[in-house]
């Protein structure tokens, strides 16, 4: 006899639950959080430094968290904008989790902060599974990365509220095929807006800030088809479901003491 329990819980229910609480706390403090996802070296820090500087010039209160496996270099670069910045060292972890963001929100985030940018670990796979309580998820890639990248990383691009193409100043030099890229994005995330930016020329910096401020002002973000349900709509957060356990005893036909098998 082997007892079986149908659980049907999200594997990441704990992170999802913490993210839901964090989202509520951020809303209470009137902070709009933006989660930035890309491969290593796509230009997140370079673009964010300009966005922070521009936001301050436009009289907005902004702050940033930047996550890296090691080194505080990105935090130092971002701090040049004058905005409050914190580095999160993930100690080898390939993504940020809600608990890490929450700890910094409680201990450090200045009041008032209207916009909080979170630069995730450079990685297009792992961070895509972890909700950080953000209102806006932005997935970036640079013109040097290959037009079909959205098809190779559909979860990251398909769940984005906004897609940003970076380093457009060198697009011609590397022969970037913009039409192929646009088709690939549209294929996994119909209707998502693509912004084109350059940290060298400043292209797109104000537009990106405009989009973030619009959402902070109450404009509903694009609803990506691949977004996890809790990221799709406001106010539909589900904490971990613990009360749905359904137990049933059934014989799997392997006698009294089930023989454990290795995975």
């Amino acid at each position, binding site marked *: *006899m082997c007892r079986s*329990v149908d659980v049907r819980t999200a594997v990441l229910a704990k992170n999802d639950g913490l993210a839901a609480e964090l989202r509520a706390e951020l809303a209470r403090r009137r902070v709009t959080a933006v989660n930035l996802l890309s491969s290593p070296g796509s230009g997140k820090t370079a673009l964010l430094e300009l966005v922070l500087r521009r936001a301050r010039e436009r009289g907005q209160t902004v702050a940033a968290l930047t996550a890296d496996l090691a080194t505080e270099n990105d935090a130092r670069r971002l701090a040049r904008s004058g905005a409050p910045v914190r580095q999160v060292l993930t100690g080898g972890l390939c993504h940020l989790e809600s608990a890490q963001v929450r700890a910094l929100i409680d201990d450090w985030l200045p009041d008032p902060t209207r916009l909080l940018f979170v630069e995730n670990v450079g990685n297009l796979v*792992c961070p895509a599974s972890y909700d950080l309580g953000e209102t806006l998820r932005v997935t970036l890639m640079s013109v040097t990365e290959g037009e079909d990248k959205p098809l190779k990383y559909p979860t990251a691009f398909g769940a984005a509220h906004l897609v940003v193409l970076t380093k457009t100043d060198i697009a011609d030099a590397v022969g970037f095929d913009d039409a192929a890229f646009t088709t690939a994005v549209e294929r*996994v995330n119909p209707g998502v807006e693509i912004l084109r930016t350059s940290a060298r020329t400043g292209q797109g910096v104000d537009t990106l800030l405009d989009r973030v401020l619009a959402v902070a002002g109450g404009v509903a973000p694009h609803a990506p088809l691949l977004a996890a349900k809790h990221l799709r709509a406001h106010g539909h957060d589900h904490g971990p479901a613990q009360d749905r356990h359904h137990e049933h005893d059934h014989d799997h036909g392997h006698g*009294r003491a089930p023989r454990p098998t*290795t995975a």
Partner: protein
Amino acid sequence: MHELSIAAAVVESAEDVAREHGADAVAGVTLRIGELAGVVPDALRFSFSLVAEGTALDGAELVIEEVPARARCGGCDARFAVGSPPALWCPHCDTAAAELLTGRELELAEVRMAGSP
């Protein structure tokens, strides 16, 4: 390799379920993983056996049910397989999907416990 973190989350939840039900060993777990969940089943299997070592899930069987990604057309309401690489556009009328029906699952479906002590 977030499969390690995911495996750790699986082990932790399954141990909680076992504890709640007074069992001290888990014989097996079943996971449902969507095609678009961003998790590689083979990597997860590998991580699972590592993470399970020395826990109530040591030696437990890991069954992974892969869930195909399916969407509903926003134009003609057809249900279609999103395919690989994914296309969220209707193969019948070329309209964008209105909804992803399945494919993002990352669920602990079942925990099988060895008989009570």
